[in-house]
């Protein structure tokens, strides 16, 4: 076990070293990471799981490929056919197809439950790197595949997993001047999309609770923007607080006990940030500055909040203590900075940046240093982080009467920009934590 672990660590370190070489400074809007060739053999199917088995191998390959760090080789190129999960691979054969990692697996079903098992090998050292099995009702077969992909991704890159996650977003349909905007949710790879509200209200900025059971969002009905809590299991929604003025831009605290949001002032001129304790329903005013203070997002330890404010004349990103003390501007580049979102690892703030008729998505350290633009164009907006802080998802609006927004993701290095498929136009994504 120790020797296996040492080899595994060596590979991880070697690969981390490689990724370091790709880290970039300044503006990078296109390019490639050098991905690791990996052979994912067709998973061996027990009777009755043939269809699932092929799907599961495909999901794993697709997850790894979309991460940008892997190049799953086409199964047609494989020389050795793996016929048994207990078979020892012929590593010479796998070296010949120029893969560096090899995955074999099997799918079985018993007692109404599906089990997916896998083994991961380093082809060059012939070392067994990892192996595990996951069991769940068959309707969760895609999640089982994501769990396997997550473990492979983690073992080889050293990064925390993120494939077994969901994304909430706004499903947009209808003409641009009368867009119907519904709450929607899907798996992170775009599968299982479903809308959760009827579209009677203009739905904005949905965000997951830390336990992924609830969503908070703002919606404009016939009266005003209001902040809601939506329970995914029951489909029930409730208004957060009974405020005379409009409320918007909600987000959960890391412990899930509070929602922070903006409330428009009585005189209608300003918006300030308030925090509501969901149990006691007590409201606490966090900012009290005559300006538009909005888009609050907690640091992962809950001690600080980043937000945007136009108190200095234009939208800029600020950081403060969660009690409202020590409010400091941290964005100082050219342009307007908005929609700050703290990364789950605490190391970055992602933002939207407007300047010279372009909208960019970027990241910087919480003190404002080390700004990097990940993508830039006509209109990019609203970043959200994968739970491992490696991928930023956002939406990109297309110009023109028939144009509409679409979700995209990009690696934190600025490489590997990918369209995230959705059935309709899509905006305002928010990534869930890793599912339990």
């Amino acid at each position, binding site marked *: 076990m120790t020797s296996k672990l040492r080899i595994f660590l060596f590979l991880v370190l070697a690969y981390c070293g490689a990724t370091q070489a790709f880290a970039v400074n300044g503006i990078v809007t296109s390019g490639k990471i050098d991905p690791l060739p990996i052979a994912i053999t067709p998973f061996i199917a027990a009777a009755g799981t043939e269809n699932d088995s092929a799907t599961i191998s495909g999901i794993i390959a697709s997850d790894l490929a979309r991460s940008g760090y892997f190049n799953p080789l086409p199964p047609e190129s494989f020389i050795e056919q793996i016929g048994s999960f207990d078979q020892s691979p012929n590593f010479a054969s796998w070296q010949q197809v120029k893969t560096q990692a090899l995955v074999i697996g099997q799918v079985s079903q018993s007692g109404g439950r599906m089990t997916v098992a896998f083994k991961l090998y380093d082809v060059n050292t012939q070392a067994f790197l990892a192996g595990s099995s996951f069991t769940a009702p068959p309707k969760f077969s895609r999640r089982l595949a994501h769990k396997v992909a997550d473990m492979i991704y983690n073992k080889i890159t050293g990064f925390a997993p993120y494939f077994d996650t969901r994304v909430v977003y706004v499903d947009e349909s209808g003409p*641009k*001047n*009368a*867009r119907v*905007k519904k709450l929607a949710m899907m798996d992170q790879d775009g599968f299982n999309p479903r809308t959760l509200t009827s579209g009677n209200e*203009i739905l*904005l*900025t949905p965000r997951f609770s830390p336990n992924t059971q609830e969503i908070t969002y*703002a919606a*404009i009905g*016939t*009266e*005003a*923007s209001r902040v809601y809590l939506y329970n995914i299991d029951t489909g029930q929604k409730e208004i957060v607080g009974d405020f*005379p*003025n*409009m409320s*918007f*831009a909600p987000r959960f605290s890391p412990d899930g006990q509070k929602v922070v949001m*903006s409330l*428009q002032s*009585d*005189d*209608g*001129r*300003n*918006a300030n940030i308030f925090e509501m304790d969901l149990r006691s329903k007590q409201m606490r005013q966090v900012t009290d500055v005559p300006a*538009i203070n*909005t*888009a609050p997002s907690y640091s992962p330890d809950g001690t600080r909040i980043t937000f*945007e404010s*136009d108190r200095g004349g*234009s*939208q800029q990103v600020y950081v403060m203590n969660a009690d409202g003390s020590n409010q400091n501007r941290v964005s100082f580049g050219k342009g307007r900075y*908005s*929609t700050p979102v703290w990364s789950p690892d605490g190391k970055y703030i992602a933002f*939207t940046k*407007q300047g010279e*008729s372009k909208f960019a998505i970027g990241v910087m350290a919480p003190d404002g240093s080390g700004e990097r633009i990940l993508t830039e164009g006509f*209109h990019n*907006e*609203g970043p959200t982080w994968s739970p491992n802080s490696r991928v930023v998802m956002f939406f990109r*609006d297309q*110009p*023109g*009467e028939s*144009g509409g927004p679409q979700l995209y993701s990009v690696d934190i290095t600025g490489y590997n920009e990918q369209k995230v498929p959705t059935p309709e136009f899509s905006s*305002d994504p928010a990534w869930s934590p890793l599912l339990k």
Partner: protein
Amino acid sequence: MMMRLANVKFAALCCCFLALAACSKKTQPTLDSPGLNTGLNDGGGQSAPGSKGDFKTNVGDRVYFLNDQTNLSPEAADTLTKQASWLKQYRQVTIQVEGHADERGTREYNISLSARRATTVRQFLISQGVAGNRISSIAYGKERPVALCDAEQCWSQNRRAVTVITGGAN
């Protein structure tokens, strides 16, 4: 939901602005009676005095704002002065002021910016003598553009506040 005017300081500011606006519009006659201006619509017969059509056609239901601005241009103040006159004539009419922003901003900010615009209009109408309890307001952010060309000529039409009659019209 109605956004109530609770800030006396702001009311004072608004009055100062009103004084300026009033000066700037003295060159134009005030159309106290919409009946004076119905020539354009006699053919259609749609715009009976005191009707929604009358308000929209003969008074003007919307004002426009500069990029990222919430203050009223002289033209906007002129339109709102006409709106106030009409609303004082038809005292049973209730309205909702819709604030809007163009698409060249981020979503959350535009919600608040458009609320500022709706508030500016509402408070101007109140300062002109329209009772505050007749005026509700709502902020739509960038969610309801009317012009879709993705150029300044369209964005300038989308940065607007629209006075929508919600009840009491003929």
